[in-house]
């Protein structure tokens, strides 16, 4: 995992700063760094988004493919997540170095979507038991500067928002066989309802308080953090304690409280931004990777 080494005195400085609600970059404990979100950045995908948060830089591409529904859930499509930690981000990821982190992030993403309301998976079903859409969500970590999970979840939500799946018309022939016809009109497409897609808030316990959006230096001071996936209604779809330390129950309650408050507040500006971008449409000059 991408980590930095810091010495005891620096740790003390950061911890006292958190206690005084003034972090080294001037933020308060529950402030995010400023974020930049852009969708539709890779044209070969069905939906894509790029999120920058400080120096953390994440690119998500979504490809829709046709597959068979899972035998146990015949009337739903499904999502597949894959997180690639390329050695571009940090030399530590070279070879198999990033594998552990990648599977950790992707399993959190799976868990986050493993419920009824995050995404309406039934909409992805074409013919029950036979055909459904499978959304391959590929996450690329371009740069790591802490708080990968939050940035990833925001990028996934933005990418899902921009995903357009072509409409499929099912016609039945005389013998009962089904024929699928995929519309080639780029405007005849299906959008996903992303209102309820949760966002992840990572809360890192530093000293006696906790902070959101920890930088790498701050993460090095934290013994344990709590990951909470929150929907815009405030429902919690996934909680995880990560890190080598333990937490006392009181701080868990406090942290879930903060997580819910912050998580709820994260959705409104994101949706507003995504809609704003869509309204601008083609008039807006794409920034892409040259920003």
């Amino acid at each position: 995992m991408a980590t930095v080494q810091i010495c005891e005195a620096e740790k003390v400085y950061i911890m006292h700063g958190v206690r005084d609600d003034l972090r080294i970059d001037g933020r308060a404990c529950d402030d995010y760094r400023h974020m930049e979100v852009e969708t539709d950045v890779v044209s070969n995908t069905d939906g894509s988004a790029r999120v920058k948060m400080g120096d953390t830089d994440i690119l998500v591409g979504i490809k829709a493919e046709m597959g068979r529904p899972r035998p146990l859930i015949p009337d739903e499509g499904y999502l597949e997540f894959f997180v690639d930690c390329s050695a571009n981000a940090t030399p530590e990821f070279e070879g198999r170095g990033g594998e552990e982190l990648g599977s950790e992030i992707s399993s959190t993403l799976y868990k986050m979507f493993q419920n009824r309301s995050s995404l309406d998976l039934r909409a992805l079903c074409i013919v029950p038991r036979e055909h459904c859409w499978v959304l391959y969500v590929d996450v690329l970590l371009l740069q790591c500067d802490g708080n990968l999970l939050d940035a990833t979840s925001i990028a996934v939500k933005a990418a899902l928002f921009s995903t357009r799946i072509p409409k499929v018309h099912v016609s039945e022939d005389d013998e009962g066989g089904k024929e699928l016809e995929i519309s080639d009109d780029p405007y005849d497409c299906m959008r996903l309802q992303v209102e309820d897609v949760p966002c992840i808030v990572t809360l890192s316990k530093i000293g006696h308080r906790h902070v959101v959006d920890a930088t790498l230096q701050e993460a090095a001071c934290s013994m344990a953090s709590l990951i909470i996936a929150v929907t815009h209604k405030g429902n919690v779809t996934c909680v995880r304690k990560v890190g080598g330390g333990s937490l006392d129950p009181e701080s868990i309650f406090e942290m879930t409280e903060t997580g819910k408050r912050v998580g709820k507040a994260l959705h409104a500006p994101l949706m507003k931004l995504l809609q704003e971008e869509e309204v601008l449409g083609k008039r807006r000059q794409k920034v892409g990777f040259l920003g």
Partner: protein
Amino acid sequence: MAVDMRLPAVRKQVPSFSEAQEKHLVVPGDVITTDVGFMRGHGTYMDEEKLTASVAGEVERVNKLICVQPLKTRFNGEVGDVVVGRITEVQLKRWKVETNSRLDSVLLLSSVNLPGGELRRRSVEDELTMRDYLQEGDLISAEVQSVFSDGALSLHTRSLKYGKLGQGVLVQVSPSLVKRQKTHFHNLMCGASIILGNNGYIWLYPTPGQQDEEAGGYYTSLEPISLADREVISRLRNCILALAAHKVLLYDTSVLYCYESSKPHKIKNILKPEVMEEIVMETRQRLLEQVG
């Protein structure tokens, strides 16, 4: 809490006014001169009588010597440079220090000040307790004593101004952005001190009060630092990052001017692109006035 989300915008670099003459920039493979009367310096090679650049950067000419100074590079240390570095390894009689150079630098046990005065013999016990003075992860300020043939730097801390660093904040920028000056240690007027390492590592720390010289610089206070000092340090940190993002040379005056022009903004807002642009522009203006 605050969440600031936006669409990305193309970053413009604040135009520089002081561009007296266009710099002579080259990329690898560019022929600098075919005149045989020149000498080959760093960043160039000879290709059949033609002097050719091997790095992207600015051509510098000193009499008959031609070098290409890369604009973005790792730190190429020279004797006398002030550096800030982090201990990566404790070895027999030496520490390895990460200083943003190609190879880790070396700090010999014989080139540090140990507690108990300068003229003390290094004993076997000192070798055994090296980790008590400096251990992995500790930050130090030091001066380049010599450069080995492979390019690794040998450091020394034989002055009371150098040594282990205590509480503060490290900011990392490109080494070429740090202006060479007589002194790289400054007690800024705004209430904090700064060490501008030539290697691009900048250390911000509260201005020390009474120096406790007995400990020889190996005692670090873990006492909490006042909120006012923290605010100054955080603001300075963000200002330095803003200046670095817009490629303004860093030295005491530029940092201080930037600090002053950032005053109307909240500390956490300094790093927003539009605020950054505004204060860097203002800083440039003031620096120009001062020169002119």
